[in-house]
């Protein structure tokens, strides 16, 4: 089977990540329970006529994809595969609200047309003229990993050479209100630096888009090699360690081979115990980092973790703001990512220095 490399990245998040030349040199701290993505000047990337109908999620996705395509020095790809948990939720909220407000009359087309989950992948394809495979996975918090697995299989079997893969989710006002009511979002505003000390229910929600050009040809711009990805819809905490050891074994690795664990802790009192099972157990002596205080929690937040892993492997640097423990590895050769949301939809992802 062919090796698969991350040849380029593009990220829009609650941090200034859209410039690939820097790596979290300036950290933005928030005092809130929902944090917004920091947006680039979209006019630098999208013609105003095309941008005027795009909601934030579409713009974030299209621009993150464009940044990744430019870094890979490609004008087209064989396939575009995206993952999203909520799709274009702002336009969905808009047209459903219009239905209610106008007694099911006077419905305008734009927000309905743009509200589908595959709008981002479609707009990227229209923008670059890609007539190849175009697919969007809507699998809650393993949406991005599902897209990744699809791309991996196509690249490993040489069905494709270059695939654009991304995770994108935008924040919707009404959706956030509902999540606050059911306490999936923390009731209190919190300093994001103190997220893991909050000791309360729920997470700080965020939004963002992270795109990557994956290829079976390693370019000079290469960030990392993808060794493997595995997902579980359900995984009891009692079986987490054994399953992770099995995943490492499948990739001919053991715990000692992991230089950095990127953990998806989101400060939710009820569900961070899954992460603690690994950080205080199997990986107690491994360097650990976390990231959801920077990105916020959303269905494709793990794509930000994937971005982080790629950056760490390329730059061989870990910013102090993301350290979860004080252990320091001598170098960063192999990175493991673990993510889950509310005890469901778990993912393991392995990256190696290229």
């Amino acid at each position, binding site marked *: 089977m062919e090796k698969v490399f991350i040849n380029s990245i593009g990220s829009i998040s609650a941090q200034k990540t859209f410039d690939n030349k820097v790596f979290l040199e300036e950290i933005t701290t928030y005092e809130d329970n929902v944090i917004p993505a920091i947006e680039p000047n979209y006019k630098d990337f999208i013609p*105003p*006529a095309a941008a*005027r109908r795009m909601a934030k999620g579409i713009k974030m996705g299209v621009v993150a994809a464009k940044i990744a395509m430019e870094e890979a020095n490609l004008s087209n790809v064989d396939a575009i595969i995206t993952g999203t948990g909520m799709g274009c939720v702002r336009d969905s909220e808009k047209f459903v609200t219009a239905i209610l407000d106008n007694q099911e009359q006077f419905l*305008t087309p*734009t927000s309905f*047309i743009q509200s589908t989950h595959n709008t981002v992948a479609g707009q990227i394809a229209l923008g670059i003229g890609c007539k190849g495979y175009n697919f969007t996975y809507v699998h809650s918090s393993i949406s991005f990993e599902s897209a990744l697995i699809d791309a991996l299989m196509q690249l490993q079997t040489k069905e494709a050479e270059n695939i654009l893969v991304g995770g994108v989710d935008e924040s919707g006002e009404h959706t956030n209100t509902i999540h606050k009511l059911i306490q999936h979002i923390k009731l209190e505003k919190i300093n994001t630096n103190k997220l893991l000390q909050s000791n309360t229910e729920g997470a700080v929600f965020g939004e963002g888009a992270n795109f990557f050009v994956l290829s079976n040809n390693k370019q000079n711009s290469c960030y990392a090699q993808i060794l493997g990805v595995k997902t579980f819809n359900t995984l009891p905490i009692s079986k987490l360690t054994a399953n992770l050891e099995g995943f490492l074994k499948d990739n001919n690795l053991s715990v000692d081979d992991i230089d950095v664990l990127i953990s998806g802790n989101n400060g939710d009192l009820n569900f961070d115990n899954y992460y603690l099972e690994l950080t205080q157990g199997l990986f107690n002596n491994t360097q650990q980092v976390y990231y959801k205080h920077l990105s916020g929690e959303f269905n494709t937040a793990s794509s930000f973790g994937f971005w982080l892993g790629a950056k760490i492997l390329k730059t061989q640097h870990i910013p102090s703001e993301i350290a979860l423990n004080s252990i320091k590895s001598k170098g960063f050769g192999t990175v493991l990512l673990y993510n889950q949301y509310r005890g469901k939809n778990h993912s393991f992802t392995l990256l190696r220095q290229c």
Partner: protein
Amino acid sequence: MSDLKQELKEKIITQLNLEDIAIDEIADNDPLFGDGLGLDSIDALELIVMLDKDYGIKLTDPKEGKKIFESIEVMANYITTHRTK
């Protein structure tokens, strides 16, 4: 009539998200489609809904829109003659 033209320009900019265009940049006789404002068929649907919702004008034949939406001047004249609210 000039109030209605002003109102139409404001509505078109807001509802069609023409955020880079100022009201005074739209002349009364500028074509709204094609070389003028560059509106397209989805915008035409938005304008048809706007006529119905805000002025009580139902366009039964979408082809009528082509003439009615020629310019702000033509739209304002049509609305003044046919409005029910």
